[in-house]
């Protein structure tokens, strides 16, 4: 005899931590497996504190972008402009600082530019019949072109305290980017799981037509999702700018695919309506554990691509097998 509460929630544990472990058991096991294997293969050097912190720092940056992409994929869309918008934010931020603007102002403008691009993506996707793939392919090229133009094709170097934002540590142990990501993860999680907006995102991705018949304003929701994603890419861009002490027009080349891969490994369905922020984080972690581990073992860079491809395919295949049962 089940209690009433269990009946409604369908057997998912109530405790948030247990719930998280329960929902993500598959990919968590995968991440743990990769972590263990590389540890054994490298005589436990892979488990060194510095390395672990380093991986987490990379993951936290990567997952910021992956969160944005996850939201978009849940609505049934796709975003190819990730890397280009990051580069725009990064180069503009550096350009303004090198022209003497206060770093805080430069930061804001950088984030704003990516956000505006996101809003343009969202506006076009929501109001026209142009597929998101094409829309963001267009803005990808435009964004990348602008980043190259404003930087004349070379990194814009900056100096001073600004680098602290991307390179500093909280209490000399935790890199700032990890903190930023924790905050963004929390905000995005709440947005997607606790608000009306979040339910509307899932409803639109699950069945846009049914959402419309239920009185949901899909255009507005889709616009907000792309805009918010642009905002996140902007944050990634300015943090990178600080971390590298320069605005890089080549920043994030191929990172749209890494972000999509993280989302997909985290169980986000490309047909929309399914996906979780917490799982995307682990998806990003798996990708970064993999590349870091392969680096550690001196596997040639080119082979890492092969490994990543195999992992993405394998993860989705396993996911489908589990769902079939």
């Amino acid at each position, binding site marked *: 005899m089940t209690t009433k509460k269990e009946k409604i929630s369908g057997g998912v544990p109530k405790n948030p931590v247990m719930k998280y472990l329960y929902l993500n058991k598959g990919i968590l096991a995968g991440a743990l497996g990769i972590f263990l294997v590389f540890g054994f293969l490298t005589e436990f050097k892979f488990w060194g504190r510095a390395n672990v912190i380093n991986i987490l720092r990379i993951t936290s940056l990567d997952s910021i972008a992956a969160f944005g992409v996850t939201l978009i994929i849940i609505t049934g869309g796709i975003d190819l402009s990730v890397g280009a918008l990051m580069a725009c934010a990064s180069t503009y931020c550096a350009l303004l600082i090198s022209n003497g603007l206060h770093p805080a102002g430069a930061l804001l403008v950088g984030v704003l530019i990516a956000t505006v691009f996101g809003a343009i993506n969202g506006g076009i996707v929501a109001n026209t019949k142009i597929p998101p793939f094409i829309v963001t392919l267009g803005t990808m090229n435009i964004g990348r072109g602008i980043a190259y133009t404003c930087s004349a094709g070379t990194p814009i170097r900056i100096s001073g305290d600004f680098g602290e934002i991307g390179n500093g540590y909280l209490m000399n142990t935790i890199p700032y980017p990890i903190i930023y990501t924790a905050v963004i993860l929390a905000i995005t999680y709440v947005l997607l799981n606790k608000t009306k907006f979040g339910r509307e995102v*899932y409803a639109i991705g699950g*069945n846009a037509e*049914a959402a419309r*018949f*239920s009185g949901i304003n899909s255009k507005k929701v889709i616009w907000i999702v792309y805009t918010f994603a642009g905002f996140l890419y902007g944050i990634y861009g300015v943090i990178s700018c600080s971390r590298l002490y320069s605005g890089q027009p080549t920043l994030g080349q191929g990172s749209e695919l890494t972000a999509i891969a993280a989302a997909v490994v985290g169980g986000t369905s490309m047909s929309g309506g399914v996906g979780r922020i917490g799982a995307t984080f682990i998806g990003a972690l798996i990708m970064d554990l993999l590349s870091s581990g392969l680096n550690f073992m001196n596997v040639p860079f080119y082979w890492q691509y092969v490994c990543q491809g195999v992992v993405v395919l394998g993860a989705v295949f396993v996911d489908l097998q589990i769902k079939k049962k």
Partner: protein
Amino acid sequence: MKNISKHFSGVKALDKIQFDLRKGEIHSLLGENGAGKSTMIKILAGIHTPTEGQIFINGKEVKIEKVSDAKELGISVIHQELSLVPYMTVAENIYLGRMPSKKSGFVDDRKLEADAYKVLERLGVQDVIHVNDYPANLTVAQQQMVEIARALSVDSKILIMDEPTASLTERETVQLLEFVQMLKNQGVAIIYISHRMDEVFQISDRITVFRDGQYIATRNIGEVTYDDVIRLMVGREMKDVYPEVNLTKGKELLRVEHLDDGKFLKDISFELHQGEILGFYGLVGSGRTEIMRYLFGVDKGAAYNAWLEGREFKVSNPKEAIEAGIILAPESRKEQGLVLIQDIRFNTVLAILDKLIHGVKTDKKQETEIVEKYMKKMRTKATSAAHITGQLSGGNQQKVVLAKCLATNPKILILDEPTRGIDVGAKFEIYKMITELAEEGVGIIFISSELPEILNLSTRVITMHEGQKTGELAREELSEELVLKYATGGANK
């Protein structure tokens, strides 16, 4: 065809039916939805194999076990939904899957086009449809010609047409009927299915009527009247599946005047009172759904005046309609009603998220109460509220759609084909719910293609035909013959 039966998991879809077709004849197959017409066609087309019975062609018994068997025997079916590849040429479509090739293995384009031209010529449409046109750029009627050309190109002796005129304009229909006559004169035998009585009478040589999977009668067209045919089609006893409808009409809820979309719907006016079940009857595509989509704000672009409880009413999106107290349970629960990958809980509250979620705070208690209340009220059969709706049966899915609608506390509930494709038990429960709601004072608009349920549940019926309101009957005046007559355009003749 002799003694053909087809059982689907114990249910008799066809029960010892018979049918015969002569060379150069147009034989219409008539019957209500679910009478067994499509099952019989599918047997002839090789999609289903009969459970028992024999099929003879030219006096020889044949076995049609797969689609290719039917093709070899010269049987072609033109389905209601056309199946052309939109961006391959007309010639390629006609010879799809059997294009002539040269010795080199490449497609012999010249022969392909010449052959296709010959077929189009035989239909007399070679000047209207060119062999290199793309179906995407053709009208529905022209696409149908291409399908017919495809059937002719394999030298079909038997052509089955399933509601070929359902999506054609009146002029196109006239043209199509001329073609059908022409094919007949060329010696093709045609099985013709249509809900439009006027067409049937115009072109048929004979008619055969099915009802509830049984063969009823075959008649020469000269020997029957319009009314005779309808009587043959519907003449059955009503089983005791309908709750008693005993409603008192309350104050006026909705008044719609002169709804006109400039394309299809012409000058439609009606009103709805509290506690009424207003039936809308008409063939699929007669404009019933379109009216409701405009009123609910899903589609835009129709001119009309409307008043809801005396106040002017016009909405630009479904959200406004829901806030005003109108909700539409759409005709297709899978495509328009439910987010199938989500559970009952998610779907039930989908239209009332405003009420339940404030900022980041969800009123879980109220949510659970509402979900449980409607699961109980609807007698939804599911393991729990966390049951994914995609895994429910059609009837239970429909109950979740209705729960979602009722959760908004509507003044007016519009039901578009609420019982389509669901089993009798669930149907009965939905009928009961409809009458209960009407008793509580909700105004109900009930669209259905099933005549018996319209007749038994409605307190008033409006009939539609080709975008126009053709009749309005009070409960006392309702009869199968009258409703069918109006809905097939009989009133205008």
